[in-house]
């Protein structure tokens, strides 16, 4: 079996380069790698790597590409897809054990970013990015969008992962219902209310707006409103901003939309119930992630094929942002096959494979070049508006969840508060209570 061997001279060179380049941002580092001509894909021939993936259509595509990767590199890949929640638990437990059974792992960076940094789970990719013999010139690091890279770059500059997917929250709207009522696409958050009011017709079972009400799942809806105030839920120095006037305003918007213009039972709606309401023409607007275009444009699953409009989240009182969520692939710090693992990540996130995500309607890839492919735009069943929406959302993208360790508990505590608001509770009182509940959890998470 070929190992990733190194000589003393190479070690010294690499160490010196690492010391120099660690002070530089990753895009600048990657620039060095682009100048290399011949790249040896067979360097780790005979090695075997284990990959932990999440069960979704993108992982299906990754697994489909493994055969070609093995033919190109001689590296054998053993990958498994695990449902999202269980995959996060598995990653957490195995990384914490210090000896994970996988070399490469999928990471939901909007949930696991801070946890992976504090736990020192992942290998810093900057030295390999800087090494021309380890990084193919075709990688074109600068092609990855800023939103995805931000998720995969630690606060101290470490490049912990390579982005694979970025989810932008957008506003889906039913063009037919809008036309029937003579309503224009809202250009501000206030106009969402006026539009929703005109479009709501309970007699016909049609409601103006639908979004997640189920606890935990509902938090990004609230933070989307909060982003319209140019505010986030946790400050850079780790202070909770969840009971500020802006946060209460966002809670009031959430409460009013769900109580006045949403379908009955929205308090228990997750994305699937929202999708059902929108896809059957029973909801005129739906605020959620961009990845639902595939089922909405599928005649076997949707009654609104060809009628769906894709809009950037309208601007709020102070700012316009799209809440974003991102995934990446990282290498376990304790992996014995780091070279082969890095080759795998380079291959699986190359331009062709990222484009395949778009071609197959598996979501929005992290590379910008994928959206600039005219043929894909022309032949896509989503239409040009969807591509424009992605590119515009990318420009105003901002994380929809705080970069903290207890993200799930944050979503749970504030999710319950939001649910109570739909049931009639006062947003200010609920957010104050939730903030007091969560404050010690957040403080404790950064200790030790």
């Amino acid at each position, binding site marked *: 079996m070929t190992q990733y061997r190194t000589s003393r001279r190479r070690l010294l060179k690499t160490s010196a380069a690492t010391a120099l380049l660690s002070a530089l941002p990753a895009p600048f580092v990657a620039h060095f790698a682009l100048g290399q001509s011949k790249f040896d894909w067979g360097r780790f021939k005979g090695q075997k790597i284990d990959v932990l993936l999440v069960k979704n259509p993108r992982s299906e595509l990754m697994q489909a590409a493994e055969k070609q990767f093995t033919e190109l590199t001689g590296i054998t890949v053993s990958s498994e897809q695990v449902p999202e929640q269980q995959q996060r638990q598995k990653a957490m437990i195995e990384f914490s054990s210090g000896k994970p059974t996988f070399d490469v792992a999928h990471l939901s960076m909007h949930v696991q970013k801070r946890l992976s940094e504090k736990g020192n789970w992942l290998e810093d990719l900057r030295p390999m990015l800087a090494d021309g013999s380890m990084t193919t010139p075709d990688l074109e690091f600068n092609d990855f969008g800023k939103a995805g890279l931000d998720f995969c770059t630690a606060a101290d500059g470490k490049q912990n992962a390579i982005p694979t997917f970025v989810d932008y929250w957008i506003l889906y709207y039913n063009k037919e219902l809008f036309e029937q009522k003579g309503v224009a696409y809202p250009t501000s958050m206030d106009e969402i209310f006026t539009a929703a009011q005109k479009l709501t017709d309970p007699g016909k079972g049609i409601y103006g707006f639908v979004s997640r009400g189920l*606890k935990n799942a509902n938090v990004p809806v609230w933070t989307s409103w909060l982003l319209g105030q140019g505010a986030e839920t946790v400050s850079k120095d780790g202070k909770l901003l969840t009971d500020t006037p802006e946060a209460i305003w966002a809670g009031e918007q959430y409460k009013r939309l769900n109580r006045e213009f949403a379908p009955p039972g929205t308090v*228990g709606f997750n994305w699937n119930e929202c999708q*059902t309401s929108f896809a059957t023409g029973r909801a005129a607007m739906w605020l959620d992630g961009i990845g639902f275009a595939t089922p909405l444009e599928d005649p076997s699953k949707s009654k609104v094929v060809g009628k769906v409009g894709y809009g950037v989240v309208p601007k709020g009182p102070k700012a316009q942002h799209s809440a974003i969520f991102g995934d990446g692939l990282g290498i376990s710090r304790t992996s014995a096959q780091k070279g082969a693992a890095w080759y795998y990540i380079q291959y699986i996130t190359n331009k062709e494979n990222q484009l395949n995500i778009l071609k197959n309607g598996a979501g929005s890839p992290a590379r910008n070049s994928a959206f600039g492919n005219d043929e894909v735009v022309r032949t896509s069943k989503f239409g040009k508006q969807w591509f424009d929406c992605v590119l515009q959302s990318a420009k105003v993208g901002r994380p929809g969840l705080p970069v903290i360790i207890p993200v799930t508990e944050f979503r749970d505590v504030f999710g319950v508060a939001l*649910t109570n608001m739909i049931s009639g509770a006062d947003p200010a009182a609920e957010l104050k209570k939730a903030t007091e509940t969560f404050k010690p959890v957040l403080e404790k998470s950064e200790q030790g």
Partner: protein
Amino acid sequence: MSVEHNARPLPGYRGGATAAAMEADAEAKRIRSRNAAMAAQVRGAARKYWIFIAPATIAVGLVIVFPWIFTLWMSAHEWNVTGDHAFVGFANYRKLFTDVRFLESVWRTFWFTLLATLIPIVLGVWAALVFHREFPFRGILRTIFVMPMMATPVAIALVWTMMFHPQLGVLNYLLSLVGLPPFAWVYDPATVIPTLVLVEVWHWTPLVMLIVLGGLAGLPTDPYEAALIDGASSWQMFRHITWPLILPYVMIALVIRTIDSLKVFDTIAVISQGGPGTASETLNYFLYLQAFQFYNLGYASAVVVIFFVIIIALSLLLLYLRQKTKWTD
């Protein structure tokens, strides 16, 4: 067993009697000696046979005893998978008894268990009495009746989730056909528990029916013949003959249903995820959140210990009641 004796001559003791006493004494010594030898043999045999029960003992120790001791140990620690483990004594337990969400989940669990146990018992007994009688197509109908029990809980939960959709679910459509307004089902904090109970009742009533039906099949016919001759009504025969005789079987169903209802997780996790808010968050779901979503392993271990105590206490109570209902001669 040793034989007690007294070698000292009694007052007025005579020669013939002395010989008999000596013989008895010798016999007693022989018996003592034989008993001692047998006891030694048994002790040796017991030592020899330890090897046969050793695998089971080790397996029980590893799979049951060790995890329990470890859980108890964890419950006395601030145990987070990302950091160190600090000993906190009973702090996790003290926190539990001031945690409103935990206390609410305990009462919710009892409420859910009560409904999800008693309703299937009543309906299951009734169904067993119906299917015990002879009528056309009984076999086919009985097979159809037990079908829900054969399906996977998660698959069932997914189907019910679709049926509960307030706008597009088939249940509200059926209500509209008879002129009734739409119902919120699992999408309202007030109705979520009764609705989840509905799913459990649909799923597990057949199990109760099968257990009671088995009991009914084994009942003697003599008491019924005597009751008929005495002119007893159907209700009197059920009240005074059938019910006392099937009670042990009902108690078995009660024990099984109680434990299953206390532990229910899959139905809630798929259909309501503990919501809306925390309206359907039972003890088991609360435990899942603490352990596998928030990774508060020490705190979750304390919940496990409390949960275990509740289950054991209820099971012992039910087993005691079952003993009381056993047939006696």
